[in-house]
């Protein structure tokens, strides 16, 4: 048992970080917003926490909180111009925001540019990653029992009718974007602090797409589904290493299969279909 963990600790940590990312996206998706800025939020927090750790000597806790806070602030500002966008338009605008963030990271001297930022203290371990995941999961569970969770679901179903019962739709959308940014920010800080070094490419469109696939496979509005999607999509490429250069095909095939046979994702397999 211990040997298994020792051998696969890197992979286990990666699953935890990806689960956090998938959860962060599912928070926005629950309100019906296809806001694809998670990779950018992750990157902002990764750089803020790493620069703080490298240059100012912050410890992991402080660095992660500062990173999450920075991501949240950026999300709150981003929420204003994208407030009126929906669906595909929102997706395109937020992907554009992600690209802007990546290009700033490449060109701003303090980030180390395209070559990356190295020397980040490697102080995030399995315990801190899964501890964070547990806290975030519990917070989402508690939130699900409040009246605000109903406001989020109603916003997803019909914005106009939601306003008609007194729900502040713009507030709900901004709130979910910021909450998602905090979780993505924690994931980004943990990622940086378990990897010695980061580059802007770690937080580009490829990462965003990966997270979206996890959520779609898990079932877009289910937290447990998001975690399972992250587990599957992180482990699968390792299991099919024998396919060598073709192993990326496996994730594409799974995505296609899920969309064709269980559009509600893995969560759809246990959720009631009435």
């Amino acid at each position, binding site marked *: 048992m211990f040997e298994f963990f020792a051998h696969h600790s890197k992979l286990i940590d990666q699953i935890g970080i990806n689960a956090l990312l998938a959860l962060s996206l599912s928070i926005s998706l629950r309100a019906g917003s296809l806001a694809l800025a998670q990779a950018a939020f992750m990157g902002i927090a990764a750089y803020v926490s790493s620069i703080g750790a490298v240059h100012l000597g912050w410890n992991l806790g402080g660095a992660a909180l500062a990173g999450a806070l920075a991501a949240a602030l950026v999300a709150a500002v981003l929420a204003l111009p994208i407030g009126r966008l929906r669906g595909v338009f929102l997706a395109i605008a937020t992907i554009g925001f992600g690209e802007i963030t990546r290009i700033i990271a490449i060109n701003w001297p303090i980030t180390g540019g395209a070559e990356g930022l190295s020397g980040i203290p490697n102080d995030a371990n399995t315990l801190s990653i899964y501890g964070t995941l547990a806290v975030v999961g519990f917070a989402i569970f508690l939130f699900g029992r409040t*009246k605000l969770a109903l406001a989020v679901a*109603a916003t997803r*179903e019909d914005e106009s*009718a*939601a*306003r008609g019962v007194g729900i502040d739709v713009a507030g709900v959308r901004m709130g979910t974007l910021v909450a998602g940014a905090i979780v993505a920010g924690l994931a980004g800080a943990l990622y940086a602090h378990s990897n010695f070094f980061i580059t802007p490419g770690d937080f580009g469109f490829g990462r965003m797409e990966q997270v979206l696939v996890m959520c779609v496979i898990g079932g877009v509005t289910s937290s447990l589904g998001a975690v399972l999607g992250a587990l599957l999509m992180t482990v699968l490429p390792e299991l099919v290493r024998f396919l060598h250069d073709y192993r990326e095909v496996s994730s594409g095939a799974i995505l296609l299969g899920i969309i064709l046979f269980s559009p509600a994702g893995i969560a759809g397999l246990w959720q009631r279909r*009435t």
Partner: protein
Amino acid sequence: MTSLGFAEQLVVDRVSVRYGGVLALDAVSLEVPPATVVGLIGPNGAGKTTLINAVTGVVRPASGTIALGEARLDRLSQHRVARAGIARTYQNIRLFGALSVADNVRAGAYRRRGTLSDDAVRELLTRAMVRDHELERRAGTLPYGEQRRLEIARALASEPHVLLLDEPAAGMNPRESGELRALIRAVARLGTGILLVEHDMSLVTAVCDHVLVLNFGETIAQGTPAQVARDPAVIEAYLGTGAADSEHR
């Protein structure tokens, strides 16, 4: 439950709404006092839905005021109008389709403190004459008539001062619209003011205390249902020029 005497009066005072160069509503005034059913009728394009949209904050009046008791509504955003105590149903049903019947009713009570118990939800379903009390059923899977009634249950859940019903009888069979009549009267009896937009004249005649007739954005007549039905301007608006003359001959 809204108890008698606590509802506020809705007052629309000389409200005009412009869509670009088109004057969709021209200085329309109306009042919906507590425990009263006010009918709003008129041909298609007369401005009925525009008036509802102005009251609920969907469109902003170019001039005029809208107030609920002491509170001005005409500068508020949609969700603040709802929180002030104006509930509505929609011409095309707008339920939260993927959510349960119970969650739809609970969402209706969003402006109130706390959340509704299952018993409170069942009581509202009973009041709105929803037959199926399977609380966990997805609202979108209910039959059409049940969806209409569930929408009314959701609106009642907010304990509104004023309830706006936008063509609630559309698509209902005669038996269902007979039940709707009883439901509207029962809601008004408990103190809620109701503004009813409806094409079904027999329903309007049966439940309304007061009727306002719009045509091309202007009020062309108002009074009791019987007075309005006799009004030459109303007959002309509905049947065309000449019809009123032949009626008088």
